[in-house]
């Protein structure tokens, strides 16, 4: 992962944290990544009921109203498959029905681009959401871009979901539940120890240490480890 990629990710992550609401956050993501459009869509029910979904998108209003008028959500393969898939997917992967082709032609006529990438999201209580990027980038370039950014995009989607849950349900995340191993890794990182040293001390591979630190970092809502360490100290999860 090079620095430039991480900078774009970190600026998008921090922008979501600063955002007043999901509508503002998706614009920030769109700008950071230079994609055409960004959409966040939370289904209210786990299975089949998309009656009153929570949707925020940067698509032009004219397209959104046309989409609603024509009931396109019922045939949109990205939405229909996206809420039952679990793995992130490129839009070029979805099953094309005749009705979906009609939708696509209409979208093209409205100046929308056809390539996209969606991250299905599921949280601990089983709420499902879909975070999607839309682009006019060419097939190969887009595929190369999303394969390099898959891990970051997945993190951003989940961070956005957290913001949406707050916006819809007014739920604040409780003080994060940091596990014992995560705490040990944070405490050693706070002492300035390198991953390799932490791994030796805890008899783990360097990779597993990274996984614990990442898990702890996201529970603490931080885009990098030094920030997570600082927050853990402040919350008295660890002491220096």
């Amino acid at each position, binding site marked *: 992962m090079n620095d430039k990629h991480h900078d774009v990710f970190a600026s998008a992550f921090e922008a979501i944290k600063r955002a007043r609401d999901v509508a503002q956050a998706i614009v920030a993501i769109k700008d950071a990544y230079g994609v055409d459009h960004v959409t966040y869509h939370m289904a209210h029910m786990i299975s089949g009921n998309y009656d009153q979904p929570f949707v925020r998108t940067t698509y032009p209003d004219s397209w959104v109203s046309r989409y609603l008028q024509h009931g396109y959500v019922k045939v949109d393969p990205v939405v229909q498959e996206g809420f*039952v898939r*679990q793995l992130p997917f490129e839009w070029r992967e979805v099953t094309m029905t005749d009705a979906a082709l009609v939708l696509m032609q209409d979208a093209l006529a409205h100046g929308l681009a*056809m390539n996209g990438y969606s991250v299905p999201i599921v*949280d601990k209580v089983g709420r499902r959401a879909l975070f999607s990027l839309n682009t006019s980038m060419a097939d190969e370039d887009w595929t190369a871009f999303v394969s390099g950014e*898959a891990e970051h995009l997945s993190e951003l989607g989940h961070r956005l979901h957290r913001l949406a849950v707050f916006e819809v349900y007014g739920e604040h995340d409780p003080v994060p539940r940091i596990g*014992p191993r995560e705490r040990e890794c944070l405490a050693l990182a706070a002492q300035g120890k390198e991953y390799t040293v932490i791994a030796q001390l805890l008899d783990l591979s360097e990779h597993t240490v990274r996984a614990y630190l*990442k*898990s702890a970092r996201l529970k603490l809502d931080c885009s990098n480890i030094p920030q997570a360490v600082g927050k853990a100290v402040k919350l008295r999860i660890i002491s220096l």
Partner: protein
Amino acid sequence: MFIALQAHNYAKHLHLVQQYYRLRKRVFCDLLQWDCTPTGDEERDYYDTLGPVYLLWCSSDMAVLYGGMRLMPTTGPTLLYDVFRRTFPNAAELSAPGIWEGTRMCIHEANLKRDHPDIEPGRAFGLMLLALCECAMAHGIHTMISNYEPHLKRVYQRAGAVVDELGRADGYGNRPVCCGSFDVSAEIHARMQAAMEVDIPLYRRPPLHNAEVMNKHNIAA
């Protein structure tokens, strides 16, 4: 070949899903005698109702199953979190996008022996793991958490994988059950390919349409 079957495609490949459930019944309920309740000749549980990903090893005509495992994101409800939280606290606390759990990994020894007599069970588990590594890499997953029988750790290591045992518990079946973390990276992938002398991709990504052609077609029209 190895494919990832997701909920939108279960119905299309129902026979494969059913073969996998039946294999799980024979392996986990009958052979290993894990604490699982069969449904007729199948083993299915609550987590199968949540639309998990099944990574399946099947013949190229998709008629015969050779093995499979169940993948779920640790951001959502997972078996290891719910069931093993007390016995595997170190594994259960790992929860982040990019960290997934793999459970119910098994191979169909009889089908393999018949169609691929050259692949012994140890190698079969190694190949499953290599395919898992490829599937995970294609989707931004960097760590897999999985439970396994103790003797499989050596099998995995021989296959070039890096496994950290995070916990071990008795009382789930004939033998203890281990829980470990598996590194997913290009480096590990290369190691596994070298260790098993495999030089072609095992996991088959779903085919992609050509969006550019559709765009151009529309402009022309």
